[in-house]
């Protein structure tokens, strides 16, 4: 029997495990997940409320007053603030250096298409964008299918990396592993020097090392003598993979039981209490008992919610009722990139301020079941969940851990 069982290994699940450790270092914590969650595809920066101008937390407090059912409102502004502070501290311990100094202001990063995004907190790879200067040089690898520096705008260079065998069908992760080798970094810097001219900074696709990211950044910066920064790539996301790997190591080192690749089939309840979950395993389902469970399996994308062509949406493990629109015609607007987003982004389960998911009667489904992350419904009319993806995950995870560890 574990003290706390967390389902899901995205931003919400992983940080819930880390937060729980900080709260109760001796607690028995288990994290079970079907696979690596959202970090593997998302850019790896931390969006709290991308559209906020000025103090981001003040903007979140304003959102809370306008949308009392919003996940931020249910978790509460103090939970967000504490979560950000603790996450920044843990991320520094794992070498990724997300910053969250107050007052928190959104910061500018570049994308591969020359667009500007404004998340609240960045890992070290993206931080150099602040010193990009007037003449950033965008660097790509000749023939590589996953980054085209000409589309980033401004000046660019295509260099031929020292990879002799099939330099094309490489994933971002493959490139990152090459960059982990100092000789490779130096060769890249050497090839780049003739293109530098009066560049004020150098931007690479986000592949600058996996296990030795900080050293890679340092090596390149020293060799090129200008700020170096990364641009998000097509998935797999290397910055997200660094975070996943870092948190995984962090949790394992502190004796959290981590089972990734184990899909949970269903929850087991005894009246108004969850007694554990059944994991789909060879032969027969495997039961894991727990005093409290945090469900952080994500939304329709993440894999916590399911849908069919009849327009039904359901939660897969505990059968928690989902708040959604039954008319499938209404799920998406006509344009994919419609600035208003889509109704489907807002579907999710309802919860109270303890993060207990609510049944059809509006009462908690079970006293020791909690939710965190984007499995939670976002009210229609609230800003797109995309612009607060990680902030919501952290705040709700923090609040769910607070509630879950108060269980007898």
């Amino acid at each position, binding site marked *: 029997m574990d003290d706390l069982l967390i389902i899901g290994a995205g931003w919400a699940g992983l940080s819930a495990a880390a937060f729980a450790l900080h709260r109760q270092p001796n607690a028995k914590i288990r994290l079970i997940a079907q696979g690596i969650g959202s970090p593997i*595809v998302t850019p790896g920066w931390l969006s709290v409320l991308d559209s906020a101008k000025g103090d981001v937390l003040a903007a979140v407090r304003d959102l809370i007053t306008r949308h009392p059912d919003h996940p931020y409102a249910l978790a509460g502004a103090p939970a967000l603030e504490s979560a950000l502070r603790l996450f920044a501290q843990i991320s520094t311990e794992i070498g990724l250096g997300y910053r969250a100094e107050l007052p928190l202001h959104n910061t500018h990063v570049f*994308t*591969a298409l020359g*667009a500007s995004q404004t998340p609240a907190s960045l890992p070290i790879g993206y931080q150099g964008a602040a010193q990009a200067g007037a003449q950033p040089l965008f660097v790509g690898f000749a023939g590589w299918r996953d980054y*085209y520096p*000409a*589309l980033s705008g401004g000046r660019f260079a295509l260099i031929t990396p020292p990879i002799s065998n099939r330099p094309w069908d490489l994933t971002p992760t493959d490139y990152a592993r090459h960059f982990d080798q100092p000789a490779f970094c130096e060769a890249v810097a050497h090839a780049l020097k003739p293109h530098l001219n009066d560049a004020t900074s150098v931007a690479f696709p986000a592949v600058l090392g996996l296990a030795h990211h900080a050293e890679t950044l340092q090596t390149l910066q020293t060799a090129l003598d200008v700020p170096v920064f990364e641009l998000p790539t097509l998935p797999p996301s290397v910055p997200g993979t660094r975070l996943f790997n870092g948190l995984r190591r962090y949790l394992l080192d502190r004796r959290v039981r981590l089972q990734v690749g184990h899909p949970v089939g269903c929850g087991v309840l005894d009246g108004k209490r969850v007694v554990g979950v059944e994991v789909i395993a060879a032969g027969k389902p495997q039961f894991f008992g727990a005093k409290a469970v945090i469900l952080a399996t994500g939304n329709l994308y993440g894999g916590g919610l399911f849908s069919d062509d009849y327009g039904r949406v359901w939660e897969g493990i505990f059968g928690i009722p989902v708040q959604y629109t039954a008319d*499938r015609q209404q799920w998406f607007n006509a344009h*994919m990139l419609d600035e208003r987003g889509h109704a489907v982004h807002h579907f999710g389960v309802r919860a109270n301020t303890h993060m207990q998911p609510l049944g059809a009667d509006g009462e908690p489904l079970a006293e020791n079941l909690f939710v965190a992350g984007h499995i939670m419904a976002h009210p229609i009319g609230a800003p797109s969940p995309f612009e607060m993806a990680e902030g919501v995950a952290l705040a709700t995870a923090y609040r769910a851990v607070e509630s879950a560890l108060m269980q007898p």
Partner: protein
Amino acid sequence: MQAATSLNCDVLVIGGGATGAGVLLDLAQRGLRVVLAEQNDIATGTSGRYHGLLHSGGRYAVRDPESARECIEENAIVRRIAPHTLEDTGGWFAAFPPDDPEYIPHWLAGCKAVGIPTESVTLAQALKEEPHLNPKAYAIYRVPDAACDSFELVHTLTEAAAAFGGITLNYHRVCSIEKAGGKVIGALLENRRNGAQVRVHAGAVVNAAGPWAGEIAKMAGADIHMTHDRGIMVAMNVRWVNTIINRLATPGDGDILVPVGTVCVIGTTSVVIDRPDDLDIPAEEVTQMLDAAEVMIPDFRKARALRAWAGVRPLYDPPQKREGEAEGGVGEDGRFITRSFRALSHADVGAAGMLSIVGGKLTTYRQMAEKIADEVCQYLGVRAVCRTAETALPKPSWFSGNSRRLHSMTHRLHQLEHAPTHNNLICECEIVTRDQLEAAIKASPEGVSLDDLRRDLRLGMGPCQAGFCGYRAAGVLGETANLPPAESIAALATFIQERFRGNRPLLWGHQLRQALLDEMIYRRALGVPSLQPEAHATSD
């Protein structure tokens, strides 16, 4: 706007679908000077928006014997002259509960009357050939259906016509039809890519604009009665069957299942609409298709729906016939109108020499073209016989032998495995390499869109629906065609929206997850600008 250039020809054909391309070839082969004008790319109207079935005629055997006879005659001819556009899957008509057994003797008699060969198949044999078939099928007959690649067919027709001097102008819109002395004398076209005007002087005009035929006729002052009958089709990512399956019952919704390449297409519906460009796909029609397909293939829904599209059947609906129709009528369901075609003359409005083609279907394109070409020749006083039924169409270099029994991926896989330097996959779902993409871009005119490239290469047509390859293709397009970054990015934004339009009615389950992933990539990782509708309209 540039000054109009002019072109002289004997016949102007309007519409680059199977009918128009068929007329272009037929007349060019008879020695006439022919120009074809198409407002978009060729085969992008009804011809490119159907399920891919070369009919045996069985579907029309009971209710529309005239169409049925045309189908079986033309089926044999198309197999002979254009085997490379076909996949000789064969077809079955199968009855499942609750289909009415009483229909079967009528159907068999109808097939016999028009010469459609049928062969009874036992259930045991059927399940051996198609293990996914619903074992409750109680009567199965084999007919000579085939799957037809309409893009390949129409492209082949325009290429064959080019060898006889036939000119195809795609992306040319008709601005006006010109008349003098009671006769049609030509038309003014606009090149939609650069806005240039082209004046075509022609002795005769063939209006083969399909669903847009009414609009073209109106330019000549004529009012033709057409019914726009929309049918939707849904492609699944599993090729559930190797044989075309038709319901052995009165034609209805969702009763044709066609294996096409790597996918399987279920069609179709029949809803009368007002405008030829109303191609919206209601979610409930998709669900209706899946329900119907499950009657034939019980596991059908377990596959992932990849793409839904709608085509508009340009059916002829003369007012006098509508009044005289006792039962059934036209009403909501366009299926009661004959699928045969009519050629309407417009001499009564001072446009002698212009013929509007309404009705018909892809399977019978050649016969339609022959009849139209005969009339045109008669009008022009030209004596020349049709030779399209005897003349094989040019075959691509990869095609050998006489028929393609079943689809295989081996052509592209073979290329890939034997030319490792081509191993740079841009579209992983449909196996499109960078070399192929670059070659297609270089072979295309300036201003080629990613959607044009998609039609050539199948780029972005797999499960990810351009989530990954869209950005890559935009990057390669920019590098190869030397585009300014803003143009490559605009091309990407347009392509994303075009893909989403067909994907949107299919967003549930895994395909919905895929769309959310794609959206995350575009919105967050790449920051693709959202299209400004006005800007889009002017660049279109």
